[in-house]
């Protein structure tokens, strides 16, 4: 479980995040949605210990992210940011292989190789595994990055807007993969998403943020309500029932 207690962060006199209080249970996909500047990415980065909080505490699987050794956290929690630029030339396989670093420190065993192959195949990158990252399309590269963090085999996986720059087909593919990862590999995945319909279709729970606070947290049905969403996004949103679940119209 991810537990956030009274987490706060100040950027300036007026701009602050928090206080945040939430418990995200294990297993399944939780989506973080909200308008721009709501603090979704900041929250994710604080959970992933990439950003320091000014106040409060966050624990993941009972480990405090501020005080636990980074290496121990790395076996339990992983996070992928939006922007990733790498100076060196890496092949897909080499990149995914880095996911094993917390365990093998760079010396890959045969067991590691099997695991790497598993995730490369899972994301359908097998044919591309020896291509350099800059020889791939944006969608393929994104899959490689996600494969890398999944290869870390941590129970908790945090993804910051993984669908950016992906067209509809690739975005659907990515969410399908994440859904399968959550179910087949039993991971707890927290994603920041811009598209509420993707969130509705693929998550188990949705957390809605606004103005640096958590506005609502609950199951998909509980959040996909027209008054709630209209209030959060400050625009008229209607909900209709689609073939796979509620759909937002805006």
């Amino acid at each position, binding site marked *: 479980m991810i537990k956030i207690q009274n987490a706060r962060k*100040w*950027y*300036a*006199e007026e701009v*602050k995040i928090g206080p945040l209080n939430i418990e995200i249970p294990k297993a399944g996909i939780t989506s973080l949605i909200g308008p721009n500047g709501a603090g979704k990415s900041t929250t994710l980065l604080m959970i992933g210990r990439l950003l320091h909080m*000014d106040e409060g505490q966050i624990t993941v699987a009972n480990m405090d992210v501020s005080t636990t050794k980074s290496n121990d956290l790395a076996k339990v929690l992983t996070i992928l940011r939006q922007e990733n*630029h790498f100076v060196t030339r890496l092949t897909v396989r080499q990149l995914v292989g880095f996911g094993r670093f917390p365990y093998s420190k760079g010396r890959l065993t045969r067991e590691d190789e099997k695991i790497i192959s598993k995730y490369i195949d899972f994301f359908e990158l097998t044919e591309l595994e020896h291509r350099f990252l800059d020889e791939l399309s944006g969608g393929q590269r994104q899959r490689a990055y996600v494969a890398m963090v999944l290869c870390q085999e941590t129970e908790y996986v945090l993804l910051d807007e993984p669908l950016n720059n992906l067209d509809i087909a690739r975005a659907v593919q990515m969410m399908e993969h994440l859904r399968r990862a959550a179910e087949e590999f039993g991971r707890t995945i927290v994603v920041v998403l811009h598209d509420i319909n993707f969130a509705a279709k693929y998550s188990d729970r949705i957390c809605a943020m606004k103005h640096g606070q958590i506005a609502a947290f609950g199951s998909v049905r509980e959040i996909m309500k027209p008054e709630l969403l209209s209030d959060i996004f400050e625009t008229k949103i209607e909900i209709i029932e689609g073939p796979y679940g509620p759909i937002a119209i805006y």
Partner: protein
Amino acid sequence: MNVTPEVESISQPQFSEQNPEQQSNKKQKIWTIPFIIAVIIVIGLGIVSLFTGVYDIWNQEDGLDMFFITRIPRTVALMLTGAAMAMTGLITHLVTQNKMVEPTTIGTTEWAGLGLVFVYLLVPSPSLVTRMTGAILFSFVGTMIFFFFLRNVKLRSSLIVPIIGIMLGSVISAFSTFMTLYFRMSQSVENWFIGSFAPIQVGRYEYLWVIVIMTIIIFLYANRLTLAGLGEDVATTLGVNYNRLILLANALIAVAVGIVAAVVGNVPFLGLIVPNIVSMIRGDDLRTNLPWTCVMGMGTITFCDILARVVNMPFEMPVSTILGTLGAIVFILILLRQRKSRRLR
């Protein structure tokens, strides 16, 4: 490492859009009380400069002659150079959208130096005009290369720009050193780089008046240059001929740096400190910042030159040493101050 957002944001100017009525109001607003006070102070500094020096102009027979031959030209040269370098810095900021650049940090001064080396090599006893031409030409090429680089490369952090610029400068300066060593030109050529106003006298400095023309051009084109800084696509959409503007900016910078280089020498950091301090205090309003930048540039360099004359009397220190040391310190302070601002509650 991730750049702290604050340093990132202060190194890029923000521009407020003004509607036409506000613009004409602002025009009147240039002559505000603080500005008038600043102008008075600068005039005061100028007067001090006129009367600072080893030569006793009151008691010597040709004291009055000396006054006209060296003192007045020197003070005038100071004012013009200060204005020129400060404004060159401002133009570079506008066009590159980066506040940490100025001719010293993008290699232009080193190119000017290389130009001088070539001139000394090719022409025995070159005249001032020849030296100037060489310096201007090379500065133009050098600045062009830098702008070209900036256009083609996507930068993730704006602090990288001055770093690259300075490296570029070192390469050129290494090349100059090679030339001087190889052709055994040694000390005399290295000395150009030490900017000093000591040798200024009537007949040597008149070309600096070109800077007045430059100033007028900058005032006229200020807004368009700002637009060019927003990038080729945006500028073209707004109806501005991007390439021609960049060439103009380039030419202005090259002319200013070239003339100053030939007549005075290297005047470091002025184009960086003055515009930055002005915008730290007054924000980024271009129209009213220009006169301030001009005036503050004049004031700063006059002050530094007076210091240079006084610190080790009767010997003179070159003003570029004072500017180089003081400028370095102020630059660092500017960088550090922004690093922490608005991070604490």
